[in-house]
């Protein structure tokens, strides 16, 4: 969670919300949370598991629709589409 907070501190565009999954089961079900940490970007894309900083930043940019032109290693957790 700390990484998302730090990104919100660095960018005025980012809002980071740490959600206690057990306390909000409806929200957890809506975004198909099966394990934690489970990150959802703009309610569209999801990343499961903890990622290194570079991969997490890339995943957030990708989820926000910003082209990531610098090569980065594949995230250790799967990125999935949770829209629709």
């Amino acid at each position, binding site marked *: *969670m*700390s990484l*998302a*907070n*730090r*990104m*919100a*501190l*660095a*960018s*005025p*565009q*980012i*809002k*980071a*919300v*740490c*959600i*206690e*999954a*057990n*306390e*909000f089961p*409806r*929200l*957890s079900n809506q*975004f198909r*949370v099966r394990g*934690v*940490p*489970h*990150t*959802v*970007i*703009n*309610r569209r894309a999801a990343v499961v598991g903890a990622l290194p*900083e*570079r991969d997490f*930043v*890339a995943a*957030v*940019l990708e*989820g*926000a*629709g*910003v082209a*990531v032109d*610098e090569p980065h290693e594949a995230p250790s957790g799967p990125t999935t589409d949770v829209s629709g």
Partner: protein
Amino acid sequence: MIPEEVRQQLKDRFEVALTGPVHLTLYTKPGSSRLILPAGMGCPTCEDAREMAELLRDAAPEKVTLEQVDITRDDERAMTDDVNDVPTIAIASNSETGRIRFQGLPSGTEFPALIDAVERVSRAEPGLSDQSLAALARLTEPTEVMVFATPT
């Protein structure tokens, strides 16, 4: 109840770690206690969240301010700040709407993340690499990052 020892530890830590102001906004609903209520009614953890937010404020009252918003009385504010669920603690360096938020009671492993967020906001210190900062500067649209976590 938060032990006095913990309060003192936090005071000692904040005395060193906090340099600038931090504004906390706690969004709650009344009528909670620990009764089991139908979904959407009451707020079983709001009282604990209030105690936690007050713990942070009381550890450094000269730097940390706390505002409490009852979303059932001030639904306009809740809508403006885009807060739908409670308890929510928002953290900012001033009275702006905090973009670092904890929804639900940040206990267990989430409590250190809450402390870290307060300290980083106070020092305006994201602690990210230059590469990450340059990448994030390319974001031009509001972006929401929700992180689901559990206390254990």
